[in-house]
C-alpha cells in the first residue's frame, strides 16, 4: 500500500544505499538496532508468545481437570478442531450459527458506518459557520468511554423503562405492545445499531482527513465543465480517497468482526442467539465450560479466517491499483 502510492522515491533509492554500503562502518552503527531492540522484545512478548501459546493450547485437552497444571494436559491432536467443525453436533452448529450472525452483523455495521461517515464528511467539507461544532458533535460517541456509552444504550433499550420504547410508543404512538430489545430476535437490531453508533465517527474522522487532502481546484475545474455534486463525488472524491477507503474498510471489518465489548456490555453473560457474536461466543464457550483447549481451537480458526479475508482483500486491491 505504501509502496503503491510512493513509487518514485523507491526507484531513486538503490544507488544511494550502494554507496553507503561501501563506506566503512560509521561509529554508532549499532544505535538503530539498540533503538529497535525494545520494540522487538515487546513484539515477541506481547504478540508472538501469546499467539504461539494459543495455537499450542488448541491441541491440548485443557479442561478444568488440568487447568491448575497445564503441563499435565494431554495432547489430543486435532480433536478440538473436529468438535468445533462438526456442524451436526451441538458445539459445531452453535459456532456456525454464531459465525453467520457475525458475518451479517459485520456487513451491516461496516457498510452503514462507512455510508454515514462519508455522508457526514462530505457534508462538512465546505467551509461554513458552525463547522467545528458539528465535527465535535459527530465525534462524541468516539470520545465517550466505551463502557459508559454502551451501558447508556442498555438503559435506553429496556422494555418498560427505556427511552427507545418510550419515544416510539408513548410519544410517537406506534400501535401494539412495547417490544423487548435486548432478548429474542430484536437483539440483533439493537446490537447493530449500537455498534454503528460506536463505529461511524471513526469512519467520519478518517474520511474527513482524506477529503481535506483533495485540492479544491479539481472541484473548481470540474464545476467549470458542468459537473453536478454527485458526479463530483463519484469521479473526484471517491478515487481521491481510495487509499483511505482501502485501509478504513479493512480496519473496520477486523474490529467489527472481533467485537467483544458491545455484546458483553449489552447482554451480560447470557447472550441471546441473535446477538451471539463470535468472539463473545468463543469467550463463553471456553470460560463458562472451562474448556480452554476448545476455545483456543476456535480462536485459531477465527484468526485464520480473518488472515485469509485480509490477505485476499489486500491482494486484489493492490493488484488493481498497480494496473491503474
Amino acid at each position, binding site marked *: 500500500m505504501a509502496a503503491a502510492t510512493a513509487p518514485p522515491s523507491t526507484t531513486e533509492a538503490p544507488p544511494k544505499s550502494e554507496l553507503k554500503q561501501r563506506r566503512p562502518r560509521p561509529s554508532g552503527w549499532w544505535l538503530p538496532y539498540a533503538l529497535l531492540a525494545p520494540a522487538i522484545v515487546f513484539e515477541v512478548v506481547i504478540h508472538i508468545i501469546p499467539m504461539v501459546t494459543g495455537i499450542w493450547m488448541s491441541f491440548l485437552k485443557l479442561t478444568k481437570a488440568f487447568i491448575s497444571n497445564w503441563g499435565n494436559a494431554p495432547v489430543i491432536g486435532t480433536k478440538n478442531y473436529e468438535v468445533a467443525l462438526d456442524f451436526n453436533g451441538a458445539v459445531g452448529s452453535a459456532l456456525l450459527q454464531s459465525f453467520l450472525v457475525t458475518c451479517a452483523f459485520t456487513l451491516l455495521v461496516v457498510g452503514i458506518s462507512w455510508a454515514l461517515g462519508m455522508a457526514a464528511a462530505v457534508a462538512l467539507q465546505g467551509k461554513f459557520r458552525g463547522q467545528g461544532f458539528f465535527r465535535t458533535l459527530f465525534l462524541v460517541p468516539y470520545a465517550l468511554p*466505551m463502557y459508559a456509552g454502551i451501558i447508556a444504550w442498555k438503559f435506553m433499550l429496556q422494555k418498560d423503562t427505556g427511552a427507545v420504547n418510550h419515544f416510539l410508543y408513548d410519544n410517537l404512538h406506534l400501535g401494539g405492545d412495547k417490544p423487548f430489545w*435486548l432478548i429474542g430476535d430484536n437483539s440483533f437490531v439493537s446490537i447493530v445499531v449500537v455498534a454503528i453508533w460506536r463505529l461511524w465517527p471513526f469512519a467520519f474522522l478518517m474520511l474527513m482527513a482524506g477529503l481535506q487532502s483533495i485540492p479544491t481546484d479539481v472541484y473548481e475545474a470540474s464545476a467549470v465543465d458542468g459537473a453536478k455534486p454527485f458526479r463530483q463525488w463519484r469521479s473526484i472524491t471517491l478515487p481521491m480517497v481510495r487509499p483511505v477507503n482501502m485501509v478504513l474498510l479493512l480496519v473496520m471489518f477486523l474490529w467489527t468482526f472481533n467485537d467483544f465489548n458491545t455484546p458483553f456490555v449489552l447482554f451480560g453473560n*447470557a447472550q441471546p442467539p441473535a446477538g451471539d457474536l463470535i468472539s463473545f461466543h468463543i469467550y463463553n464457550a471456553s470460560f463458562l465450560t472451562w474448556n480452554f483447549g476448545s476455545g483456543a481451537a476456535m480462536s485459531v480458526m477465527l484468526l485464520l479466517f480473518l488472515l485469509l479475508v485480509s490477505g485476499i482483500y489486500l491482494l486484489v486491491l493492490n493488484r488493481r491499483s498497480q494496473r491503474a
Partner: protein
Amino acid sequence: MKFRTLAATAAIAALALTTAACGGNNNSSSPSSAGSSDSSGSGGTLTYWASNQGTSLDNDKQVLTPQLEKFTQQTGIKVNLEVIGWNDLQTRIQTAVTSGQAPDVVNIGNTWAASLQSTGAFMPFDDAAFKAIGGKDKFVKTAMDTGGVAGQDPTSVPVYGLAYGLYYNKAMFSAAGLTPPNNWEDLVTDAQKLTTGGKYGFALAAGSYTENAHFAFINAAQNGADLFDKDGKPTFSSDGVVNGIQRFLDLMQKDKVVNVANAQYDNGTKAVNDFATGKVAMILNQNNADNSIVANGMTSDKYGVVPFPAPSDAKSQVASHVAGINLSIFKNTKNKDAALKFVNFMTSAETQTALDKPFSALPVLNGATPNFTDNAAEAKTFADIYSTKSKPLPLVPAEDQFESTVGKAMNQMFAKIASGGTVSTDDIRTAMKTAEQQVAAAG
C-alpha cells in the same frame, strides 16, 4: 506528505481505539483493590476473597472488618480482605486457578464445590485439617455434604447456609381472602387471582441462568428425576426434567401470572424489589432476600414464608437445593496453618452468630439456632426447609456446566415466551438434548 499526515492520523486513532478496547476488556478481571492478590507470600498475612452476601460490596466489608480485626487480635495474623461480586467471582477463581496467583482462602458458591474440586487446585480437608478446624461433626450434615464429591476428602467446608422459600405478601393474600399455598395447583390459582390491576401474582428472575438452573433442578427433583445418571452422564432430556421445566415456564406462558418483563431480570434482586414494593404477591428466593426486602422498607411482619410447594401428585416434596457458601483453601497457599486457623475462626460458633444476622444466613453448625430474622415463624420455616426439604445439587464435576447450559437454554425459552412465541414440550426436549451434548463435549 499528505499521505503521511493521513497515516499518522490513522495510526493515532487506531491506537486510541485499541487502548480503549483493552481498557474495556480488562474491566471485569482486574483486581479492584491494589496489591491484594499476590501478598500471600509474607508470613503473617492471609488473603481472603469474600463473596457478596450483604446488600452491597461495601456492606460486606463493613460487616466483615470487625470480625477480621478480632481474628488478628487473637492470632496475630493479618487478613487482606477483598469482597468480590457474584458476576466476577467465578472468573476470578478461574484466573486464580489457572495462573497460580491465588488468595489463601476463598468463598465459593457451594454448588461449585465438586467442579472446583476436580481442578485439583484446592486443599482437601483430611483428618488433620478437620481436627484443626474443630472436627467434621461440628457442621450440620446437610451442609457438610456439599463440601465435595462423595467418598473423597472435601475441598470446602460450609460457612453460610441458604435455602429457597416462597415469600408471600400477607396484606395482598388476606385482601384476596387467600391462604398461602400448600401445593403447586393452589399456588397457580392463588397467583392467578392476585394477577389483577397491573399487579402480578409472581415475579421470577427469568433472565438469570443460575436461578433458572436451580429451579430446573428443584422441579425435576419434585418429579423424582435426576440430572445425572450413575456414570455422571447428563440426563436432562428425561421426562421428569422436561416436565419440571415446562411447569416452571408455564407460570409465564400458560398461567400468565408472571410479567413478561421478568425475562430481562438477570438477577434475583430485581424480583425482590418488585415484591418489597408491593408490585407482586409472591417470589421464590433464598433467605438472604431478607436484606433487600428490609432495605426496600418492607418489615419482616409484612411477609410470610412457606416451602416452595410441589404438585399434589409429586414424587418428592423437595423445596430447595442445599444452597449456601463454602470456604476453600487454595492448595498452593504458603500459610496453610494460618489459613486453617482462619477457617476455624470463621466457622466458630461466635463468628457464625455474629455474621448470620447481617448476611441473613442459616446456621451451618449443629445445635445453633437461626438468628437471621426477628420473624420467628420465618426462621423456623427456613430451618425446616434447609434440614428436611433440601436436596443437594448433583455433586459431579459437570455440575457447573449443567447450570450454564440448562440455565441459559431456559433464559432463551423465557425470552421466546416473553416476545410472544410458544415453547412446547418438544422444544424443551430438543433444547435439553443440545445441552446434554454440550456438557458431553466439554468433558
